[in-house]
């Protein structure tokens, strides 16, 4: 227990030190001023599988991007949809910037590769068909490719679009934490996911390391690990903002997170030689091992909590069986306040997590004062381990996971 808490606290402290160091800023707060000639050609891929309800919004947000029209092409790939997606896409067919590919269903990676073979653009990226971008997002991302020839990939800041259900509100807080994590990991050159919504790549680099792979249903994670394996630079632009529709129900969220965790575990096995390997810098020596340890720590802490709760319930049942229903005697005395080391460290960890979340929200220009943070703190600790355990089981049994 002490070791688990020490390791978790160490990682949070390490991330905070890295963030506050900021010896070399990776973000461009001001909008870059480039002439159209200086800007590279860009292609945005939209893999679509049954996206008839959201694809129009996604396409319109891309068409509204602040980027020279002659340098931006949008390639929508209908990946064997069984709904009306293709018909909706065809309404954009006449638009000069939009290309439409219709193919049999083969998974997101196959849709990305189909689009890749269709373009000669210097910079390529993806926007999931349930996401929308701010108009200056692409310009801010491209700025990194223009300013630093070593940059191979750039990730954006992802925010939850129109959170309505309790689960979406919880995810809004969680995405705030992710914004911090992505930024801090970029400072350490240790990003290991280029998320589906609006991550961009230098096409020449993709051709060099190879096209997208299935990657155990997490092609974004596999591609980033492959880039890191090949010592390519992956960075983050916190001011490039993309909004994504998040799962509305607990069941949908559970399925998504099982897929993500399963993908991480299986890719961790595939890329196991990167763990504790100094060749891969901080990513290999700290970030990847810590991500795996955190997963098992969460399962361990959750199991302890469940065990203690069960012991308490059994005790109360025995009490009820022995003396019947009894009213507790309320008493307050500071003598009985628990000051154990474990509880104190857990409180410090919770406070630090809230601080990290606050920094993330500030980076994403969100208000920190929101009810989503307490809801997140109250709920997530209990539901996260459930999908971690499920994903671990599926990974061990090699069952595979489905997208939806």
């Amino acid at each position, binding site marked *: 227990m002490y070791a688990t808490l020490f390791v978790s*606290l160490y990682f949070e*402290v390490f991330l905070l030190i890295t963030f506050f160091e900021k010896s070399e800023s990776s973000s461009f707060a001001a909008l870059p001023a480039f002439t159209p000639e200086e800007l590279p050609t860009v292609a945005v891929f939209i893999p679509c599988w049954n996206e008839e309800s959201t694809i129009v919004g996604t396409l319109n947000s891309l068409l509204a991007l602040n980027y020279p029209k002659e340098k931006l092409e949008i390639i929508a790939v209908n990946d064997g949809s069984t709904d009306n997606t293709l018909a909706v896409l065809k309404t954009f067919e006449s638009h000069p910037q939009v290309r439409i590919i219709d193919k049999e269903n083969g998974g997101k990676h196959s849709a990305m590769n189909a689009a890749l073979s269709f373009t000669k653009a210097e910079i390529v990226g993806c926007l999931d068909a349930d996401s929308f971008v701010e108009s200056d997002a692409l310009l801010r991302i491209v700025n990194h490719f223009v300013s630093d020839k070593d940059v191979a990939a750039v990730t954006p800041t992802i925010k939850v679009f129109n959170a309505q259900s309790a689960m979406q509100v919880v995810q809004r807080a969680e995405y705030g934490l992710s914004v911090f994590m992505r930024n801090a990991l970029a400072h350490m050159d240790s990003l290991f996911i280029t998320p589906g919504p609006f991550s961009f790549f230098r096409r020449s680099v993709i051709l060099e390391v190879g096209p997208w792979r299935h990657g155990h249903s997490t092609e974004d994670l596999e591609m980033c690990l492959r880039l890191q394996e090949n010592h390519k630079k992956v960075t983050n632009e916190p001011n490039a903002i993309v909004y994504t529709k998040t799962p509305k129900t607990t069941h949908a969220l559970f399925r998504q997170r099982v897929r993500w965790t399963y993908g991480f575990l299986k890719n961790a096995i595939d890329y196991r030689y990167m763990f504790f390997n100094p060749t891969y810098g901080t990513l290999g020596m*700290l970030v990847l091992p810590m991500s795996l340890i955190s997963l098992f720590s969460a399962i361990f802490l959750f199991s302890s909590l469940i065990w203690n709760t069960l012991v308490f319930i059994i005790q109360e049942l025995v009490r009820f069986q022995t003396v019947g229903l009894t009213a507790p005697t309320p008493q307050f005395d500071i003598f*009985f*306040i628990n*000051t154990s*080391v474990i509880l104190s460290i857990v409180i410090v960890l919770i406070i630090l997590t809230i601080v990290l979340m606050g920094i993330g929200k500030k980076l994403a220009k969100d208000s920190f004062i929101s009810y989503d943070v307490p809801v997140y703190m109250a709920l997530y600790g209990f539901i996260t381990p459930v999908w971690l355990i499920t994903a671990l089981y599926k990974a061990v049994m090699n069952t595979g996971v489905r997208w939806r």
Partner: protein
Amino acid sequence: MRTTPWTKYILAFLITAFIFITAIIANNFFNAKRVDQIRSIEEGISIDILSLETQFELLQEQSCKNISEDSILSRELDTLANKLSFAEAQLGADNEEVLRLKRHYSLLEIKDLLLMQKVSDKCNLEPIFLLYFYSNVKGECTDCKRQGYVLTELAKEYPQLRIYSFDYNIDLSAVETLISIQGIQPELPGLVINDVPYSGFQSIEAIKEILPELATLATTTATTTEKTK
């Protein structure tokens, strides 16, 4: 590929270690305060018992009018027991300081018991004494938890019932002598109800059957009922 300088790993380690050490020092500080508080309560009870003994010896028969069955320190002993049990959970049952406080507490209980018996004889009071012997050794007393629930409920229902609990394995000759005098068997939980020893778990109903006079004691429930009438 960027490599983090080893100084940053060490700095993060030092900060984490500092937070851990601070938590440990703070916990030790609060535990020391708790031990001090328990010691202070024990000293207070000790002085009170000594004072009562002296007062009783000085005034002899005349003192009876000033002494009722619940005038002695049972409530303070209960508070002490709760705090001692919390300290035991925080510091560990094997902690030397906890064991010392527990031995002192057991001695105070025995002194209170003896004094109360003396007072009862001289003043014709009829308090009900219940001695409870338990064990914290794993596997030695599977029913001690349940017996504890029963006695807690009885104490809540009948505040005048005088319950004294003793750790069967405590390293204290006075308790060993008490165990021997009362004829407590190693099959725990062990109870002594008005000088008669009982082995094994006793339910509320069983204890009420052994002690029909409990019915004559005022109960907290009865008091509440009286007030609502």
